[in-house]
């Protein structure tokens, strides 16, 4: 016996389709408001830290200087825009990795590790084929990068399917293992002999071709293609339907004849492959060599990207562009305003915080008919049994 359900609307009663502007506002309101609020909080933090840190004259306009530098760094010149796109591309791949996992109810916090192992695979094959014909070298090195990430996604997926080890803990642990693995290889077998610091050879012909400006590698074209592909996979194929079913209700999926364990392994592997592609994009597209401290903030930024995009593959492009701009502009901000680039991490965390608190935000701002910040993308039901379900 339950409380009577509301009477269903009479059949045939179809609500009028709202105008495009209304629908766009419903989707975008929360992300936009949240981003603006976060920039305000960031300004307050800049002002507060001025007061805390001694030895500097208090400048009430410092936040403006900082944000102006940030904007200039991200969009101030054609080169800056290309650099923003180059920062955006790996975030799209990484964001897709996390978003795809969310759809299956899996929280892949291990993009950082998959990123590193992917880059490792790309550099190993890239260096070996540095003098091979470019098409062969590029395809082989890229494939190796994807495989490396896939391997690093397969492990936690396999462990979860077979023993129930929760992917959140195992992927985080694998992040640390990847860091050590990379350091061991780059300062060991992959190191250029007689080089004073641990660094590998250049990938030579395996480097991704430049398609825009001086630095715009092909990744900036591949990224949106990947997003569309992931969308198609999720919403237009039977496999995507299975992935989403397992994410929404593992029991119902099993009942329907799907195989949740196999799907968990496949999903984590595919998610890891996307994470590996992110690392490949940075290695073959930007650095071309690997040092023992190789690594960027892409891994954790990817989580923020997927959350801000509400796991929508197309939304990932927009969210990645936002964080890519912040990363691209942060360098100039540090030079012009003396604000550490870590401010971007703070901004990112504030954005996520406001996003999670968006039900409160919506109430405060009286925004009706606006979609909540983080809802259907949440993997909580799949985590029902805590960290050891």
């Amino acid at each position, binding site marked *: 016996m339950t409380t009577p359900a509301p009477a269903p609307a009479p059949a045939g009663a179809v609500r009028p389709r709202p105008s495009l502007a209304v629908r766009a506002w419903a989707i975008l309101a929360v992300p936009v408001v949240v981003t603006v609020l976060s920039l305000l909080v960031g300004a307050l933090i800049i002002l507060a*830290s001025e007061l805390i840190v001694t030895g500097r004259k208090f400048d009430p306009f410092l936040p403006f200087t900082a944000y102006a530098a940030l904007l200039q760094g991200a969009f101030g010149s054609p080169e800056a825009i290309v650099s923003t796109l180059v920062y955006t591309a790996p975030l799209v791949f990484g964001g897709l990795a996390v978003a795809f996992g969310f759809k299956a109810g899996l929280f892949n916090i291990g993009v950082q590790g998959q990123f590193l192992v992917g880059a490792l695979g790309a550099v190993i094959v890239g260096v070996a084929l540095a003098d091979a014909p470019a098409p062969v070298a590029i395809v082989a090195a890229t494939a190796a990068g994807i495989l490396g990430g896939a391997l690093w996604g397969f492990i936690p997926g396999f462990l979860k399917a077979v023993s129930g080890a929760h992917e959140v*803990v195992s992927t985080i642990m694998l992040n*640390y293992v990847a860091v050590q693995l990379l350091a061991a290889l780059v300062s060991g077998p992959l190191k250029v002999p007689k080089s004073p610091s641990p660094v590998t050879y250049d990938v030579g012909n395996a480097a991704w071709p430049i398609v825009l400006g001086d630095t715009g590698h092909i990744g900036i074209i591949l990224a949106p293609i990947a997003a569309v592909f992931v969308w198609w996979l999720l919403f237009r194929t039977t496999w995507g339907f299975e992935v989403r079913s397992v994410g929404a209700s593992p029991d119902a999926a099993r009942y329907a004849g799907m195989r949740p364990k196999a799907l968990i392994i496949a999903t984590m592997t595919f998610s890891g492959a996307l994470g590996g592609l992110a690392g490949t994009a940075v290695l073959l597209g930007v650095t071309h060599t690997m040092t023992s401290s190789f690594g960027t903030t892409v891994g954790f930024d990817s989580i923020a990207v997927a959350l801000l995009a509400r796991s929508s593959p197309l939304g990932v492009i927009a969210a990645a562009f936002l964080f890519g701009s912040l990363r691209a502009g942060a360098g100039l901000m540090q030079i012009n305003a003396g604000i550490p680039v870590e401010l971007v991490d703070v901004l990112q965390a504030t954005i*996520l915080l406001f996003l999670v608190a968006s039900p409160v935000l919506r109430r405060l701002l009286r925004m009706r008919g606006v979609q909540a910040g983080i809802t259907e993308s949440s993997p909580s039901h799949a985590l029902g049994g805590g960290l050891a379900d």
Partner: protein
Amino acid sequence: MDFTTWINGLYGIPVIGLVFQLAGYLVAVIPQNSPNIMQQATPLALAALCGVLCERSGVVNIGIEGTMLAAAFTAWIVGVAIQPYFGTPNPTDLFGLTFPLVIALVAAVLVAMGISALHAWLSISLRADQIISGTIINIAAAGLTGYLNQLISQNSPAGAGEFARFVAPTALTSLPIVGWLFAMILNQGPITISVIILVIGCQLWLFRSRWGLRTRAVGEHPRAAETVGIDVIRVRYRNVILGGVFAGLAGAFLSIEATNSFQQNMTAGRGFIALAAVIMGRWTPIGSFGAALLFATFLQLGQLINIAPPSGQLGSIMASVPPQLFDALPYILTIVILAGVVGRSVPPAADGQPYVREAAS
């Protein structure tokens, strides 16, 4: 010519020789390094207590890592801020307590409680996904401490110093066979010494007290608890915030007891390893403490093998392995144990599930 090479020669099977060598190495090294192991275990055990309290009431907290990091930073930065006002402090004989140190410790605990309250608010009141809420806390803590650390450490100021260790009477610590246990437990700073007391206290509290009974009921079947008049939301808030006290102690340990400085991301995944310890310890304080000791032993061994490798054949094999792989050992071990233990370890039934009051539905 020692015992192990003799065994080697006798059986002619190198593997057995290696096993004996390893056993001999462990027997020699573990008691000798037991105080260090205890110190490695301290932040893990405290963080695990935080995890036990949260999860027993039904809230998964993967933000422990970030909470610890923020507490570690707070303990250090508060010391930096107030140190100038106290001149040269006069440390007490016991634990080398100074006023700034105590304030730093209290501040760290308060900050950790505040962060835990945030996690409670997001995951209990707003019913946000608990994993996401915890992840945000981790990102925020890493970002904010990194940002401030960049700003401040340009002048590399000194903090409030560190707690001194208690020194147990040598009559105790030099006892044969068990002496090293006393050294392990007693020759420690105040936070480390308190761990054992806190673990036993939490165990009793969880299984013998009213609050403990209510906590377990709320974590297993919150609706049943509500029907007998228990305020599920309040019980969860209390547990999560109390858990913050332990996370705060764990963080403070890192920056004002184990060292007297703060380094970026100095928690190095301990908050996550603690979660594995909670699972391995089957959601009991004493069990998680045991698991924390096991992890700590491996953390310590990872370092020891690089510094003082075993002699003989085993040592030469280990020397040929890149040292980074020994650093990765505790993390690999965590995964292995998680995979091996989880199937047989049953979490609280409502762990990770937001609670909606019946009245509100």
